[in-house]
């Protein structure tokens, strides 16, 4: 705000930016900054390959540079939308300032984070090569340019939120809409594959990735593209869902690496379980703090009939479908046993009792070792050496080659787990949109009124509980085989290793209660973040809590909002109540004129 440029307002009608510059200058600055940022990624950023990603080459971006390149391109495109170029308007339908600012912010944060990380990791600014300086300066120019764009409002919030005046989307032919969905799915797949592929030792790169994803998708949100896309998605629901699953099925072929495939399977397992929990928590509103026990029951049931020599029934080896049914049935029975006495309780009481039952499961399994109790589960040692599954004579343990791609053991399980996730998604969707699903939601909304409308609350809640339990059991059967062994340790309420009740609950709440995408996204994030940000180590739980608090403060409905919950938490965003704009105060004016 200390610029010496002329401050005489030329057009009093258009609101000016925080930095008094003519509009044309502002957008030129952003574009130049973006081009500079892009250019910088083709230069060396540091002299040594010690920094993760090896940013020492001229002519070929790597690691953080690739991310910065993407951010630069995004910024450039958004800068160009300020010129009203035909064919680019769709990127920023309202021609708003906020998305441009956020795009520039993505380039700025990635560049500056990289430069700082290099300087701090390697011990001093001397380690920065000209490329890093260029990236920092260029991205700074871009964001200063963005700040000179017409101010979207008097508050800081206006700079980062979606404007109201987004024009309705033009009509695309049906195939065009499907093409958009396909393209978006592809972008999603590439993003996910990139994220999961980041070297666990290269936390810097992963943070850069997060910055880009957060600010980039925020820009798209502020531009109104996310909303348009969700409308498209709703219109082609079946197509969109199949595209998502297709993308997930392609994943093992794209990311041809057993470690990442293993990550993928584990993510799918927790995502599926979280989706089952979403029926209980998100739809029916029953706070279940011991849900992971059902995963454990399924896993143990499958392990016992797997033919492992450590199993009590080592002579028995069920075929996969029978093991799956056994796992589901065992969880179902356990669910009904726990649910029948507890579901008569409401609210906090239910939460406490489920917490207790969850722990009882773990402790019981721990003690059924032959000394403290009958030998069924082999106690804390668990059941190991679980053989691989065989489906129709195909052993999932052996890898095989399709074309030039080798599909390894974990990739096999990934594909199997994907089918199971698809089944669970189908079950969730169909159950939610039916008489029973409506009665779940009614119970969540007001249990007294629901029973007065003729809903047998206990029965309906028990169905939700049992369904959730058996879906978790289903996922448990596969997870037992994927992990070779089962033991009681992971099935606890809270811990630093993922499948625990608190983790699953956080995945649901964080991702978005009552939605399909929410728990899947939540589980993915929660699983991937600690994996990739290994430097957090003992601060993991702290960081996790902090992230949860921040998210709940600013987006209580979760990342993916159910339409209902969105309306619930952001009263003013609903269509028929116009947003109440505060009367113009002088604060913004003085700020702009200062």
């Amino acid at each position, binding site marked *: 705000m200390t610029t010496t440029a002329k401050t005489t307002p030329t057009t009093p009608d258009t609101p000016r930016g925080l930095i008094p510059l003519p509009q044309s200058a502002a957008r030129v600055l952003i574009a130049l900054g973006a081009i500079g940022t892009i250019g910088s990624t083709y230069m060396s950023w540091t002299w040594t390959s010690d920094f993760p990603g090896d940013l020492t080459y001229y002519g070929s971006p790597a690691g953080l540079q690739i991310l910065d390149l993407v951010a630069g391109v995004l910024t450039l495109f958004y800068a160009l939308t300020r010129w009203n170029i035909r064919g680019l308007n769709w990127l920023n339908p309202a021609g708003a300032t906020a998305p441009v600012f956020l795009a520039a912010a993505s380039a700025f944060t990635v560049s500056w984070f990289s430069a700082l990380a290099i300087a701090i990791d390697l011990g001093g600014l001397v380690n920065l090569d000209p490329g890093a300086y260029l990236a920092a300066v260029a991205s700074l120019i871009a964001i200063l340019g963005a700040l000179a764009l017409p101010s979207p409002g008097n508050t800081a919030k206006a700079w980062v939120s979606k404007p109201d005046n987004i024009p309705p989307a033009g009509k695309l032919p049906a195939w065009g809409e499907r093409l958009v969905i396909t393209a978006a799915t592809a972008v999603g797949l590439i993003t996910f594959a990139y994220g999961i592929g980041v070297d666990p030792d290269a936390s810097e790169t992963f943070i850069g990735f997060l910055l880009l994803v957060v600010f980039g998708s925020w820009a798209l949100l502020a531009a109104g593209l996310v909303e348009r896309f969700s409308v498209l998605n709703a219109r082609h629901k079946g197509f969109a869902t199949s595209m998502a699953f297709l993308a997930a099925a392609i994943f093992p072929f794209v990311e041809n690496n057993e470690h990442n495939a293993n990550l993928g399977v584990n993510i799918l397992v927790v995502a599926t379980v979280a989706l089952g929990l979403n029926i209980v928590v998100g739809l029916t509103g029953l706070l279940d703090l011991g849900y992971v026990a059902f995963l454990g029951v399924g896993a143990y049931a499958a392990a016992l009939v797997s033919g492992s020599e450590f199993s009590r029934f080592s002579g028995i080896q069920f075929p996969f479908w029978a093991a799956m049914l056994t796992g589901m049935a065992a969880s179902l029975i356990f669910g009904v046993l726990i649910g029948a006495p507890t579901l008569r309780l409401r609210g906090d009481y239910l939460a406490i009792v489920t917490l207790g039952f969850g722990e009882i499961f773990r402790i019981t399994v721990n003690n059924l070792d032959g000394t403290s109790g009958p030998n069924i589960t082999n106690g804390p040692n668990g059941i190991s050496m679980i053989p691989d599954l065989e489906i129709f004579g195909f052993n999932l343990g052996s890898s095989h080659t399709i074309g030039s791609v080798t599909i390894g053991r974990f990739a096999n399980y990934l594909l199997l787990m994907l089918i199971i996730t698809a089944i669970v998604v*189908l*079950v969730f969707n*169909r*159950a939610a*949109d*039916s*008489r*029973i*699903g*409506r*009665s779940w*939601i*009614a119970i969540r*909304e*007001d249990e*007294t*009124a*629901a*029973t*007065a*409308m*003729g*809903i*047998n*609350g206990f029965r309906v809640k028990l*169905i939700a509980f049992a*369904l959730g339990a058996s879906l978790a059991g289903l996922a448990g059967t596969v997870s037992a085989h994927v992990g070779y062994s089962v033991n009681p340790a992971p099935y606890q309420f809270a811990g630093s290793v993922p499948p625990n009740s608190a983790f699953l609950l956080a995945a649901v709440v964080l991702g978005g209660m009552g939605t399909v995408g929410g728990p899947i996204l939540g589980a993915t994030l929660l699983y991937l973040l600690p994996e990739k940000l290994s430097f957090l180590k003992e601060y993991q739980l702290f960081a996790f809590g902090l992230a949860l608090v921040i998210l709940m403060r600013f987006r209580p409905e979760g990342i993916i909002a159910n339409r*209902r*919950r969105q*309306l*619930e938490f952001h009263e003013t965003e*609903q269509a*028929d*109540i116009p947003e109440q704009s505060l009367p113009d105060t002088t604060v913004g004016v003085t700020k702009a004129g200062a």
Partner: protein
Amino acid sequence: MTTTTATSPVLEATGVTMRFGGLTAVRNVDLTVNSGEIVGLIGPNGAGKTTFFNCLTGLYVPTEGKVAYKGTVLPPKPHLVTSAGIARTFQNIRLFANMTVLENVLVGRHTRTKEGLWSALLRGPGFRKAEAASRERAMELLEFIGLAHKADHLARNLPYGEQRKLEIARALASDPGLLLLDEPTAGMNPQETRATEELVFAIRDKGIAVLVIEHDMRFIFNLCDRVACLVQGEKLVEGTSEVVQGDERVIAAYLGTPFEGAPGDEEIAEVEAAEATGAQSTTSTEGSAQ
């Protein structure tokens, strides 16, 4: 105001008593509602009217007494009462706030449909047909109540008067033989109150008996074939509008002339004030106990 159907009792409550610890909120109340009738239940605040409704619908298990619907004694379980044929609304509106208007009514259809989890998962033709029929019936009801154009709005976004109407539509969705309305015009302006009056008549003409709690005396005496007055949990009088209107004990209960077992002065003043402003008042009584 008379209907052609032979009058047989729809609801017979006998000796209903409800005690909360030392407090007897409802004491030995008998009440009969015949088919084709609109019966009013009046009484000062805290008289036990809502508690009596809760006893009828199984939300409270009455300490003593029994409730029979069309000759069969009802178990004190809300969902069984509703599926037997008694539907209700609540004094403090209890809609499913985050469901759409249509979904609210669909939930009301719960007892008259039976598709379970399996049919929802398998989605056979039977499921589709039942779902379509439910929707059609729900839309009919919204049409009847005048909310069809807002079928896709969230219930929480409706204005107050429409929320009350929606509660009635939701209750009607269970095809009841008896509808219990707990202060259906509370917080409404005079025009809305008039409209509700018409609505209640229309419901009666559909062959549904109505038992209505209300503080608006003009509304009650216009509407009801019979009125019962509760004071401190006891049924003081029961009879036609004229009889109850003229009964000195009722007047005393409302206006505070001392009589045996009269409610406290403070309460009377409150009732008086409410009565005085009742005509123009649009404030809600949402805060009060249900």
